[in-house]
């Protein structure tokens, strides 16, 4: 069984995000970039499945410019076997990514895709679901536990009133939640091996899908700054404020 893991290059979660002066987006100049944390969890899960003998190969895929290769090397250092960069300079939106990935899934005949539940830059949280739909595969999103045996995937997901367990037949798609696992640190020998693992570049144009943007970003702004708190006089005032100002009760 081949597992395909899409990985995205995003602003490092420890970096304080700054906006461009013209409000057109986030300033990425000289900013530290990393593998999307949920994707790292996805790679870890795939590698564990391989180590447990459930998978034969783990393939990491990233769509974007040449710089994505760094992200792919991170995935390789964590234990992925090989990598594919779908090369494009186009501004990629979730549907476009899903379409590109679909083409790769088919050409690789992967039977399981594990994605991060969302990328921490745009927080769209759509690629996994769209990809499953395009493939016509069952999907289990926000997984907090995954077990695979004999062509069946059993996935637990944390929902508001407890834990839901889904079972689906492969091929299937899973998206990872934060608590699925704790990714390992890449070991030095694996970092060095990553350099020698195969990394294939495929031109997005050769995959025959329309990836032109369909959404327009109008403006990007800072979230409103939090106002200072106040001390309420008594419970009545508290209730009043909760009801009429905060409108939470």
């Amino acid at each position, binding site marked *: 069984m081949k597992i395909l893991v899409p990985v995205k290059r995003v602003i490092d979660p420890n970096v304080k995000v700054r906006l461009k002066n013209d409000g057109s987006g986030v300033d990425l100049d*000289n900013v530290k970039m990393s593998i999307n944390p949920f994707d790292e969890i996805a790679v870890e899960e795939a590698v564990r499945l391989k180590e447990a003998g459930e998978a034969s190969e783990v393939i990491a895929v990233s769509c974007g410019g040449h710089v994505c290769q760094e992200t792919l090397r991170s995935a390789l250092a964590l234990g992925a076997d090989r990598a594919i960069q779908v090369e494009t300079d186009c501004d990629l939106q979730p549907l476009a990514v899903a379409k590109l990935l679909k083409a790769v899934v088919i050409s690789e005949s992967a039977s399981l895709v594990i994605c991060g539940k969302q990328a921490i830059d745009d927080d769209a949280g759509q690629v996994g679901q769209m990809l499953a739909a395009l493939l016509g595969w069952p999907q289990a999103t926000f997984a907090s536990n995954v077990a695979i045996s004999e062509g069946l995937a059993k996935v637990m997901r944390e929902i508001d009133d407890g834990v839901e367990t889904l079972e689906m037949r492969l091929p299937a798609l899973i998206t990872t939640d934060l608590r699925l696992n704790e990714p390992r*640190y890449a070991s*030095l*020998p694996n*970092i*060095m091996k990553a350099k020698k693992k195969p990394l294939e570049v495929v031109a997005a144009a050769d995959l025959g899908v329309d990836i032109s943007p369909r959404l327009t970003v109008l403006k990007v702004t800072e979230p409103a700054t939090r106002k200072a708190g106040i001390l309420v006089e008594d419970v009545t005032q508290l209730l009043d404020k909760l009801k009429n100002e905060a409108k939470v009760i």
Partner: protein
Amino acid sequence: MVDYQAPLRDMRFVLNEVFSVPRLWQTLQLLSDTVDEQTAEAILEEAAKITGNCIAPLNRMSDEEGCRWNDGMVLTPVGFRKAYQTYAEGGWVGVGGDPAYGGLGMPKAISAQVEEMMHASSLSFGLYPMLTAGACLAINTHASEELKQKYLPNMYAGTWAGSMCLTEAHAGSDLGTIRSRAEPQVDGSYEISGTKIFITGGEHDLTENIIHLVLAKLPNAPAGSKGISLFLVPKFLVNADGSLGERNTVSCGSIEDKMGIKASATCVMHFDGATGWLVGEANKGLAAMFTMMNYERLGVGIQGLAAGERSYQNAVAYARERLQGRAPGNLVAKDEIADPIIVHPDVRRMLLTMKALNEGGRAFSSYVAIQLDAAKFSEDPVVSKRAEELVAILTPVAKAFLTDMGLETTIHGQQVLGGHGFIREWGQEQLVRDVRITQIYEGTNGIQALDLVARKVIGSDGAFYQHFAEEIIMFIDSSGSSLSEFTVPLKEAIANLENLTADLLERAKADANEIGAASVEYLHVFGYTAYAYMWALMAKASLGKESQDEFYASKLGTARFYFARLLPRIYSLSASVKAGSETLYLLNAEQF
């Protein structure tokens, strides 16, 4: 205390932009296959992650808790075992080790950065892998094939640790007088007896075995330093199949209660007829130790830098937020009760001094690391010999100057926090306490200065010094006028050092006391001049890019500060050097 963020940007700048190290790696056949810019980048990123997330958070509490001795066993603080295991499993203990025995063969230029991150996360923690790496180096260079195969793979893997047992109660700087003895046995092994003190990591609970390298004297050995041999003494004997056997008769009598690095076990070690094996030739043990000293001493220098870096990060974060007093002239934070203290000239002086010394130190230690790599990996004997001689003269400077500056910077970092700098919770006082030992062990800074002047400068009749001076002059001559604001004062500084060196060579002929009287200040003049060269190199790599990226603007600003405010220290130090030894001997011992 803010979280430690490894200064990756600056490390990258130093390696790639100032010294173009990846290009150098390509020219060295032995390295070109192991490492390139991308691999180096990936290694540094991962080292930053593991040290920042896994070790740095332990630093504060492990200082409170310290190590505990219990009936010969030593317990390290909570969290150390798990962190050590993660660190070892990642292969980091063997980062610079020999690939023939399971090491990773990385150049020192990379492992120096890894060491900085590790020590900045926790000096105490960093010592365990550091001592192991040092012991491995000695074994790999001098031990028999059999010993190497038996011990190195587990040590590089971090499953076994190492220790260096040199010091005895009456023999510290002067190791020639040690009393530990080694009796040859019929099977080719030795029985080692004696007591060593101050042994870092002599006993602990991080690994299943500890391999001690012990200095001892053979029967009828010549007196003094020419009669000392080096032995490998494992805590647990190792069976022929590699499994652990009997406990050897080596034990930890107690651990020291001390000023800093409290989470590093400093042990009294008893060897009671313990079984050991000779490493290298009989009576050449001190020489064997010295061949690896260059790596170790640079490593200790980097500890000084690491503490300074962590202190700086805390100090800057604090200075931006602490509101106190008003800026002279304009109000900066009109809506606040006061301005952030970063507006005050004196706070800026302290922060900039820290920044200039840290970044100068990072460039300098990387420069020395690159020379170590050239000496080890170059196939051109001329290049390798020159690099070796540069290493010889620069290593005592790196050890002593980086650690002396480490104390200065951590004290500034403490001062920036005012009263909070004195309070434990903020972490700044711990850095002062922790860094203090780096000036003392691995040869006190006084001994380093003697080594520099007596053995390296005078011992080579100025030849080693000339390599360095010539390189700087060549750099000045090949730099255009755009750089003259840096090269002009650099040229004056090198002329000053030249003059001081010639003067010292001359005076030492007449009176041997002149060497010891001049050495510490001379080393400092050397250090500031070397940093001036580093800052000129960094300015060159930044000039013209300052409007694209704040990083370069900040570099240039700091370079200007260094030349204007720190380099001039050489002139007062030089005056002290020139004053000679006379006034040191006006008092007799009773008059003190």
